């Protein structure tokens, strides 16, 4: 062992400071470990992190208007949108130039669609104008104010220009306002008209129903998990297979099966009528509404509740219950004061899992939810697939993500995240 006692620095065998050679060897170890997980890391980065970042940025991005109508955006800044008067000729002229360029480059429909989210009718206005504008000579054909108003009287409406001005900045809070049933106007944010407010209600419904589903899963799952943890091996294995069985069938099949079970001419109603618990006319409506969604999703998410509960309960030795009873506790007290508190981490883990899965669930509400039982994710899907308003979809998604993170944080504050156990 070479160590120089004269100086305070410990040296390793070859004379380099001990700290340095330790660091070097640790770094090498880390590099090797990193290399080993590199494929997974890259995959997560590309397939998970990047889409999320891209989605987050889409919810505030608004480059399209500025890119397609650069001159208009520039000259409209000097116009006082609140004046109640139409912009002056230079703005119209700039717009004529922009729309001609856009029409030639065939990009006018995109911006038309974008502005149409904010004020319906703009799309047709743009399309009609673009067709005409292709033939104009910008230098000599002025003045454009009259010309444009002649093409479509919409250009004589102050609101159209207000819309263009409000939505011209590169970044916008418009999508987020839309996501909470508000809209951006020249006066600032204001509530959407009554007939268009649906998203807040959807958010509320998503949260409330996810909570109900989580709660139903706890109620139904707890006894099953308890049985799993306490039955003799053979029966427990059989039960475990039954719990896992749903995973072997397609989600679609399971959901569709609920359709068969719950519909008005379905199995459950038939049985109830047979038992004359309900009359033939009074068949219950259990599908295409909240009940359908809750029942089907509780069933589908149940294993995610049972498994973490089970793995926690398995670690609770039966001697605790015996000890409690020997100390004079009744069965119920022993359970409630001794067993239950120790199984809470399992309930917590299961609840977080089920709640987070439920809040973003899409297929099941879509199939059995009707209009009353759909979730916010169905709306997101609608905006991505049908209305193509990706910005709004991104804003909705972001809000959902933030909501989950806040819940997670609250849970951490109240229960403590290190109290969550998925096993051992």
């Amino acid at each position, binding site marked *: 062992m070479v160590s120089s006692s004269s100086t305070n620095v410990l040296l390793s065998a070859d004379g380099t400071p001990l700290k340095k050679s330790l660091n070097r060897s640790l770094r090498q170890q880390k590099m090797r470990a990193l290399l080993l997980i590199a494929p997974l890391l890259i995959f997560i980065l590309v397939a998970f992190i990047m889409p999320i970042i891209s989605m987050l940025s889409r919810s505030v991005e608004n480059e399209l208007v500025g890119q397609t109508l650069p001159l208009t955006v520039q000259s409209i800044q000097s116009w006082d949108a609140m004046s109640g008067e139409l912009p002056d000729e230079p703005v119209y002229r700039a717009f004529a130039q922009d729309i001609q360029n856009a029409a030639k480059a065939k990009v006018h429909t995109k911006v038309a669609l974008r502005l149409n989210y904010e004020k319906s009718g703009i799309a047709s206005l743009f399309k009609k104008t673009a067709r005409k504008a292709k033939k104009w000579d910008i230098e000599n054909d002025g003045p454009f104010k009259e010309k444009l108003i002649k093409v479509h009287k919409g250009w004589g409406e102050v609101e159209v220009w207000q819309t263009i001005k409000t939505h011209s900045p590169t970044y916008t809070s418009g999508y987020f306002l839309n996501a909470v049933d508000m809209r951006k106007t020249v006066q600032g944010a204001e509530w959407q008209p009554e007939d268009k407010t649906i998203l807040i209600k959807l958010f509320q419904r998503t949260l409330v129903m996810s909570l109900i589903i989580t709660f139903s899963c706890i109620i139904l799952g707890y006894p099953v998990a308890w049985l799993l943890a306490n039955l003799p091996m053979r029966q427990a294995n059989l039960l475990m297979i039954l719990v896992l069985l749903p995973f072997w069938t397609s989600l679609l099949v399971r959901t569709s099966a609920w359709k068969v079970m719950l519909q008005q001419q379905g199995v459950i109603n038939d049985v109830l009528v047979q038992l004359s618990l309900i009359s033939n006319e009074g068949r219950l409506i259990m599908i295409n509404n909240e009940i359908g969604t809750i029942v089907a999703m509780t069933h589908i998410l149940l294993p995610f509740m049972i498994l973490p509960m089970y793995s926690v309960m398995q670690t609770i030795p039966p001697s605790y219950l*015996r*000890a409690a*009873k*020997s*100390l*004079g506790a009744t069965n119920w007290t022993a359970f409630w004061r001794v067993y239950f508190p120790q199984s809470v981490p399992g309930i917590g883990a299961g609840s977080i899992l089920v709640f987070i899965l439920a809040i973003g669930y899409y297929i099941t509400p879509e199939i059995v939810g009707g209009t009353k039982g759909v979730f916010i994710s169905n709306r997101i899907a609608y905006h991505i697939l049908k209305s193509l308003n990706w910005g709004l979809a991104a804003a909705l998604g972001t809000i959902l993500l933030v909501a989950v993170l806040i819940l997670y944080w609250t849970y951490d504050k109240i229960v403590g995240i290190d109290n969550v156990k998925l096993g051992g």
Partner: protein
Amino acid sequence: MVNNNSSSAFVKFDRVQKSYDGETLVVKDLNLEVPKGEFLTMLGPSGSGKTTCLMMLAGFETATHGEIMLNGISINNIPPHKRGIGMVFQNYALFPHMSVAENLSFPLEVRKLDKATREEKVNRALDMVEMGEFKGRRPAQLSGGQQQRIALARALVFEPELVLMDEPLGALDKQLREKMQFEITGLAHRLGITVVYVTHDQTEALTMSDRVAVFNDGRIQQLATPDQLYEEPENSFVAQFIGENNTLNGTISDLKSDVATVKLDSGDIIDCKPVNVSTIGERTQVSIRPERVELNKKRLPPGSHTLTAEVLEFIYMGDVFRTRLRVAGNEDFIVKTRNSSDQVRLNPGEKIEIGWSTSCCRALDA
């Protein structure tokens, strides 16, 4: 402290049988009476049914047949929480989500005692095991020995008359175990409680108990005080199980009321005390404790039989010498002698004559 009018014992097992699977009897025929204030230990090899008996007494297992009485009342149909029996588990079973004080106050809470009384009793119990300053800790923050004390305090805090302990010291190291043995017996006697204690450590059983019940194969092989158990084992299982023991096999050639003459398989003849042999010609296992073997012929009573032995090994152990001999074909015949000034040290290969007094040599069942 043993109750004098012990006509009705405090704890009584009356022809108790237990089977878990309906095919084999784990407890075969248990008859046991424990007077009030006694420290009784159940000792036996693994799987002999000790825990099962304790669980039946605590009420966590039901007896398949027979009756268990507490204070003269059959408790077969009384649920565990109404039996008022304190219990210390092998893994302590302290509730991990409660502090030490909460653990101790649990049995008092379920008995609906008021807060002041609870606190007073908890403090008293903690002081009893010298753990007063650990009140606020969680069990996980205590060492094994400390957890053990808390478990003991918790079993005693509601002042039960009967306390059951299932290998409570199994997880502790030797030194701590000896200390705790001492403390447990001290406490038990001071409080005058009846204790049924389970262990498979025979030293523990012998040092702690008023009486020991040796279990094997679902039966009590012998129920006696520690000294009787060691010196007068009633059958070969007990002789083998308790302490060190030398055995010689043979047949009874002559049987009188206090002397049995045994012809060993090697042809040698010895005299023994008949214990559970009854007929001439019967096979027998003769048992002699290593420290009762006499190497010095002069100290033997005149006319006693001696055997020729060959020294195989001599081990110096400080206070005693341990000599391994070949005697009548048995190569594991151990002799223990005290390291005294007149004691000779033997060398391997030496041939010597050994003997013993008839009363120390017990003819048991084969």
